[in-house]
């Protein structure tokens, strides 16, 4: 029987002991004496969130296919266990073996959002691994980061030995082979880092030196040894239908946030919305084969026992064989009473027809993400959704029995004016008006329109990476304008308005475009007691503010400051394929309100064609 790292007393005293015992269906057990590399894969948030993440499931399966590697999982202990681990000095452990992760060869941390940065330090701290990479010795694991936030790793540069830039399927095996050679050689820790730096996609922050101008902007960032490349190339899988994908994902006992089979139908997005980081990072758009997806859907459902399957992608409607895939799933899943969930679908006749088949119309709601309230501003952000499309989609849906609509917008977008903010209220009003055009006997009671606004955060590698970000006060003022205008509408009783918290958004903005000088602030905030910042009940803005003051770092430098077109950015050393020149051109077009066609309409020469696959090379065979 597996032993547990925690005593019964501790397990019985914490909220959900099932978070910490491992042993889930499809979890991989190996003999530790028979492997060469022990890899702990971490999602630095609570178990139920971390277990919902597809990327870890893919890498977990990939690593464990190799006999010489045992990949295990670890998540951020919730507050109650955090206290118990510190009190009893129990080192943080991996779920499968329940062994301390400080004894592992690697600790891999996926960095999915900025607000998990203090949890990364928590995981290191509880694992009894020095927070600062430079303080680690041969006794410690190598700490490697990946995921979307690794595209600007600089605020975290002090805490990681390495970063993997891009999709893990391509180079991890090579990196592991180099590690095995190094381990045999008995050479220094630094020697491995220099070896690793030569693997494509690997960034070793300690091998680079950053210098600054008098105005505090970056003067240069240069390698301090010949092994480190000047530019780190993003890794992308070219043959997405012939690569790693887990047929037997781990099935948690607890209800995870994503409690279903996740079928990733494509990577990337053809749309090119100018605020969207994923839309640029994951270029080129690459579709998986229909036959592969059918096969995986059936196998994954069989191996997990889930009662729901969800398609995953940035924009499912753009998958060219969606209709065939959905029809297959309806046929395969219907008799087995398996639900099909179709997020990120454009609302049109096809999707309404499908949704009517797979879900209860009365209970479900329609989702539109116009992102901006006016056509002018939607052109600025290159969101190709028009008011006519929304009203016609909503109208068809209302006639089909739906009566609930969710609308998502952003406030604080570049060039936003009061008219654009008020436009949010006007659009909601028009949708409500469209509902009441449906004859009364066909309507399903009153309509409910839920308007949600988030605040815009400029992200690296987007056309808006130069943009100034609003202050907290500006953000809240804009939410006030929307709220006030909604109250002026005839159908105000059918419209509900939610807005996001502003101070956490400002912090996200600092971390997103931060540089190495933000690292000490993160550590100070953690030491001041910041943890689980993405959970509003935990977020303590005043402690973050105090950390900025104590470190002498001005938050406004990273948020509201206007950036010159030729400013050196902390993330410039990464090459994502999409060129800086393209982003700059898009930034200019945005300011002129000129839209750019999507990748299937015509190629805009972003640079991603360099990867030699995906949408860039469709119809060229």
């Amino acid at each position, binding site marked *: *029987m*597996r032993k*547990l790292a925690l005593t*019964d*007393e501790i*397990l*019985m*005293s914490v909220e*959900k*002991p*099932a978070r910490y*015992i*491992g*042993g*889930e*269906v499809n979890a991989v057990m190996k003999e530790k004496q028979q492997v060469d590399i022990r890899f702990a894969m971490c999602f630095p948030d609570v178990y139920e969130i971390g277990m919902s993440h597809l990327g870890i499931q893919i890498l977990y399966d990939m690593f464990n296919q190799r006999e010489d590697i045992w990949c295990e999982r670890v998540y951020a202990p919730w507050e109650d266990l955090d206290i118990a681990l510190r009190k009893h000095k129990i080192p943080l452990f991996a779920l499968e073996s329940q062994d301390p992760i400080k004894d592992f060869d690697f600790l891999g941390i996926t960095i999915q959002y900025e607000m998990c940065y203090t949890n990364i330090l928590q995981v290191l701290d509880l694992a009894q691994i020095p927070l600062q990479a430079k303080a680690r010795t041969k006794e410690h694991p190598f700490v490697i980061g990946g995921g979307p936030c690794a595209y600007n790793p600089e605020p975290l540069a002090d805490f990681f030995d390495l970063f993997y830039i891009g999709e893990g399927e391509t180079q991890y095996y090579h990196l592991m082979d180099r590690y095995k050679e190094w381990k045999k050689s008995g050479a220094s820790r630094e020697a491995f880092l220099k070896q690793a730096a030569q693997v494509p996609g690997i960034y070793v922050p300690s091998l680079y030196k950053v210098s600054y101008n008098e105005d505090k902007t970056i003067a240069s960032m240069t390698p301090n040894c010949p092994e480190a490349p000047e530019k780190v190339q993003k890794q992308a899988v070219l043959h997405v239908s012939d690569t790693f994908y887990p047929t037997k994902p781990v*099935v948690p*006992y*607890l*209800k995870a946030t994503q409690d279903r089979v996740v079928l990733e139908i494509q990577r990337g997005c053809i749309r090119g919305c100018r605020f969207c980081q994923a839309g640029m990072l994951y270029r080129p758009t690459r579709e998986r084969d229909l036959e592969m997806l059918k096969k995986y859907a059936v196998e994954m*459902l*069989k*191996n*997990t*026992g*889930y*009662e729901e399957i969800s398609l995953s992608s940035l924009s499912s409607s753009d998958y060219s064989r969606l209709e065939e895939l959905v029809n297959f799933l309806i046929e395969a899943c219907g008799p*087995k*009473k398996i639900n099909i969930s179709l997020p990120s679908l454009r609302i049109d006749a096809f999707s309404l027809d499908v949704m009517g088949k797979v879900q*209860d119309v009365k*209970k479900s709601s329609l989702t539109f993400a116009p992102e901006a309230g006016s056509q002018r501003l939607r052109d600025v952000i290159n969101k190709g959704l028009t008011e006519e499309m929304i009203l016609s989609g909503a109208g068809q849906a209302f006639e089909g029995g739906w009566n609930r609509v969710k609308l998502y917008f952003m406030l604080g977008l570049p060039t936003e004016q009061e008219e654009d903010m008020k436009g949010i209220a006007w659009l909601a009003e028009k949708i409500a008006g469209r509902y009441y055009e449906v004859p009364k006997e066909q309507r399903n009671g009153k309509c409910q329109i839920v308007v949600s606004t988030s605040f815009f955060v400029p992200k690296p590698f987007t056309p808006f990476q130069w943009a100034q970000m609003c202050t907290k006060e500006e953000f809240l003022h804009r939410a006030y304008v929307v709220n006030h205008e909604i109250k002026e509408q005839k159908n105000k009783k059918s419209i509900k308005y939610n807005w996001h918290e502003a101070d956490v958004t400002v912090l996200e903005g600092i971390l997103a475009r931060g540089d190495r000088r933000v690292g000490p602030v993160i550590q100070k905030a953690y030491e001041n007691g910041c943890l689980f910042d993405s959970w509003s009940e935990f977020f303590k803005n005043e402690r973050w503010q105090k950390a900025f003051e104590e470190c002498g770092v001005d938050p406004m430098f990273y948020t509201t400051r206007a950036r010159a077109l030729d400013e050196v950015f902390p993330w410039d050393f990464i090459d994502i394929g999409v060129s800086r020149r393209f982003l700059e051109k898009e930034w200019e077009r945005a300011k002129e309100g000129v839209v750019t066609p999507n990748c299937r309409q015509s190629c805009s020469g972003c640079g991603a064609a360099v990867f030699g696959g995906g949408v860039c090379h469709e119809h060229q065979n």
Partner: protein
Amino acid sequence: MNIRIKFSKTGPLRFISHLDVMRYFQKVIRRADMDICFSEGFSPHMLMSFAAPLGVGLTSEGEYVDIRMNHAPSSREALERMNAVMAEGMEAISFRRLPDNSKNAMSIVAAADYEVRFRQGREPGKDWEKRLLDFLDQPAIRVLKDTKKGQQEVDIRPWIYDCTIQDGVIRMQVSAGSVHNLRPELFIQVFALHERQGYLVTSSELHIHRLEIYADQGTEGKRRLIPLEALGEDIG
């Protein structure tokens, strides 16, 4: 047809809550490709009901779940198929067909057998075995129990049907189910309080293991306890 499945829950899986066990079993049924019946309506659910929830931290070799199936394989095949897809620590022990008019497990639970051990070093002093049996040997054991109407004094003595101690293991048969459900840790806690130990014994200081759950087939005041699985028959 109605099927009763007996299963065990041991080892680390004692920390899985009852709600999670229910979700787990739904997935087992799917992984084992069992032809289970669903309820009608737009969001159909499996026809499945559990006999008696087991508290977090307890182990058991006598858990029960009833399911309704369209077609059932033989007991042997069903056990093989389920155990091939169950996690270490849970095992299906029997798979039996119930008579068509049988009541579901939850409604007929009348008693349960438990083994209770103190964790090492947590025993209440020397010779605790004798003192515990003496404590039991009184006509009434009055306890303040939380009920829906607030706290009420109840006599739990009649609900303890049998209790023996051997090699430090307390083996007890107690009333269970919807009428009078006695949790074994409550009895131990009352004993500890009675001994003026000055602290409440918490569940984590005890190892509690459920052995069996019974239905009462007796008539008019005469108890005749039968293990729930004995109400069904193996499918050949």
